[in-house]
């Protein structure tokens, strides 16, 4: 069969491009009218992305952005049910959900296809694209403390007996409290029974707090004096409502928790989704998060203004955050939850 020069050139180009296509499939370029569906928390987070990400994306591509609002639980359950045929393009999950979702083939791992990937701290490259560090630590009423809290072991000081609101279940705060108990008292991750026994020494609890809003009510109303909570929200609470609320910086460190932007496996808007995540990782959005809700940047190219120093995690103290073996935790989650329900909360 005869082949002209144009056909030959085309074939050569295709042949040269083949390795690249094996590494990364070709995705359609976004076109006006495309719709990106983003699953995210309502409230402040929804407002921030609508203000700082959506306008830039819409301006660049003429696309539309729609939101599915809700907690990560419902979002994750729906994404699992839709694995491979997602109705979401970008899904925001927490640290342990995101790593499990990648392992289960529901969402994609982080990739350099997102240009700002190169600025991500290594910790933020697991389970998708970490978009905000939001460490968990001990928060307490400093007027009820005989001395500032400097260690996770201080929770076992008798002065807190009956005044602790232990976090509910094995969510981000709950698992942070349990794993930091293990770290502080020298237990291995495979010694969960010992951790539970140690936590049981703190009983009776003043309550089990199911959300930061509930905890803040408990602190406001003098129902409890101490708990484990996200430092960011607690700082906002302390500044706006309760100046007596202190945020501990224990010697063992603060537990890392993180919001993660995840691109779903099988999304029909890969490019748009990557562009969305890239915009989220931009210094402007990172600073907006830090300014508005004290979420700490996960990229190393953001200059933290002086007024935020000491209030968010900066390059110098990212390494102090304590990470856990989430694969092990996720593998034992049901078993641990059952034990938690019966022996800690029950």
């Amino acid at each position: 069969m005869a082949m002209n020069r144009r056909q030959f050139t085309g074939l050569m180009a295709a042949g040269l491009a083949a390795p690249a296509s094996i590494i990364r499939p070709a995705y359609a370029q976004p076109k006006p009218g495309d719709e990106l569906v983003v699953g995210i928390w309502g409230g402040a987070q929804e407002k921030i992305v609508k203000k700082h990400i959506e306008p830039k994306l819409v301006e660049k591509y003429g696309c539309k952005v729609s939101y599915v609002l809700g907690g990560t639980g419902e979002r994750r359950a729906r994404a699992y049910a839709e694995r491979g045929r997602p109705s979401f393009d970008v899904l925001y999950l927490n640290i342990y959900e995101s790593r499990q979702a990648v392992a289960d083939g529901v969402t994609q791992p982080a990739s350099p296809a997102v240009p700002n990937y190169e600025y991500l701290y290594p910790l933020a490259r697991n389970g998708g694209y970490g978009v905000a560090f939001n460490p968990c630590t001990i928060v307490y009423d400093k007027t009820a403390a005989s001395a500032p809290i400097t260690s996770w072991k201080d929770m076992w000081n008798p002065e807190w007996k009956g005044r602790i609101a232990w976090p509910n279940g094995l969510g981000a705060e709950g698992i942070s409290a349990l794993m930091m108990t293990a770290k502080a008292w020298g237990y291995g991750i495979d010694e969960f029974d010992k951790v539970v026994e140690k936590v049981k020494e703190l009983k009776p609890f003043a309550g089990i707090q199911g959300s930061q809003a509930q905890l803040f009510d408990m602190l406001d109303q003098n129902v409890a004096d101490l708990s484990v909570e996200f430092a960011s929200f607690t700082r906002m609470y302390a500044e706006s409502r309760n100046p007596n609320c202190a945020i501990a910086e224990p010697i063992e460190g603060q537990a890392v928790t993180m919001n993660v932007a995840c691109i779903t496996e099988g999304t029909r808007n890969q490019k748009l989704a990557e562009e969305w995540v890239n915009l989220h990782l931009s210094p402007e959005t990172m600073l907006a998060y830090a300014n508005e809700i004290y979420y700490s940047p996960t990229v190393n190219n953001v200059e933290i203004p002086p007024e935020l120093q000491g209030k968010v995690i900066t390059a110098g103290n990212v390494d102090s955050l304590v990470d856990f073996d989430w694969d092990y935790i996720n593998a034992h989650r049901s078993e641990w939850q059952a034990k938690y329900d019966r022996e800690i909360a029950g």
Partner: protein
Amino acid sequence: MKRWIGPVLSFPVTAWLLLAFAAPMIVVVLLSLHEYPSPFGPVIQSPSLVQFVKILTDPFYLSVIAETVLLGLAVTAISALLGYPLAYWLARMPSKWRALSFAVILIPLLTNVVVRSLGIMLLLSPQGLINTFTGWFGIPPVETMLFNHGAVIIALAQVFMPFMVLALYDNLQNTSPRIHEAAESLGASPGMRFLTVDFPMSLPGLRSGVIVVFLMATTSYVSATLLGGGKVWTMGMLVLNEAISNLNATMASALSLVMTTVGLGFIALATLWLNRFMRWRQGVPSSPWTIPAWVATLVDTVGAPLRYLLLFCSIGLLILPLVLVMVQSFNDVPLATAAGFKGFTLEWYRRVLIEGDYTSNFVVSVKLALVAVAIAVALAMPAAFALARYPFRMRPVLLAFWMLPLSLPGVAIAVGMLKLLQVYLIIPPFAGLVSIHVVVILPFIITLLTTSAMSLDRSLEEAAASLGANKMRCFLLVTLPGMAPGIFAAALVGFLMSFGEVTVTSFLTTARLTTLPVRIYSEATFALEPTAHAISALLIVVTTVALALLGKFVRLDRLYSR
């Protein structure tokens, strides 16, 4: 009587439930029979009862079942105790005030359950209204009213008592004044008349109310989560934990079915027990109630003050939390739950009215509720007549099937729906949501319409027929107007149920179809701003004004009373 009429009238609702409810229900049953949870495994696997064995041999699960049942019984008892005087008061309200008086139960129903629970918190908190009030008399504040079983029971009673009132209202206002005159002419005192006439005749409504409130209370989790402070466990919370946190749809399904069985058991027991006092309804000879004279004297003496005391408590319980919600909507605080009034602001109203924060969600909720109610009433009317007038062999089985959506926790239906999500993605999202909302509200509408159909005075229809009216004319001019209060109550309950539904909807919501409650719930899981209070306050004002205007110009008394 033609035997085919009952089955034919039962067909539409049965067909709908088979298509929209049986499918997720079957999935739930199949999932409950899995040996191990497997999020991506096939639905049909070799059956195993291991999950049920786990539940029934684990003291933890058994204690939560017992806790849930006791909680449900307490909520039902309080709702009946406080709801009865309120329904009695509403039924005897002069017709020109009745529409406005109905605001007492309609406004709470229109307010999101999350917001109402927050209102209860503002009422019971150490710095809340009750402690502030008692503080004026030098009584020290009680700091233990929140985050315990008592707080949850009060919150659930606040949420579900309106359903008890609606169920009782239709019966109470149907009692003919002639019956009262007859009782009085035979020498009955007001107390004796209440004990021998009003109360027995209201038993069908009480039965419906007791069943509805118990089932709703035992399958709920929002109020228990917000007000229990982790010290209160319900089966609904366990199902949610397993389905959402652990992605263990298998255990969630098994727990749901156990809860459903408990609910059906309660329906059977409550029906059998209360039917013993209603033999007169079945046309079998029965002796009149024998009331000792001292009981009648006691009721005559303390009945009126006790009634007004309970009425005061019930109105207070329904309205006070909402007053606090309205106050909070002007509070200059960052979060909806912030205690204490920090300063006046209109910011939350600006967000709602000028920035339109919730407008599209509100419109979606109203459209969804209107369409769902229209379909549900059309399906339930024939079913109600089948139950009330045309007994047939399969009727008890069908009734149990129709009531199933009520006793199955909403989150369980959601678990089943999640497995069927691919099918529902093919169906237009709005149609999918409507079909599920119809399923959720049908048990209420069937119950209320059946109660109403059973209360109809058939002699009026016989009179119309004897005067030459054919069946259609008789239905349109006699039966239907006679059913009007029942239809109104059923449509209203259905609308409010659909408008407030959040459990199943949050699983099926899409980017373009987020309802108002789902939006508020989604914000509550992060940080709820007082904007939620502002939109609730606006709904309260609009409802009150609308009811007042309607009552003035549209002669609502024609609708409420025959």
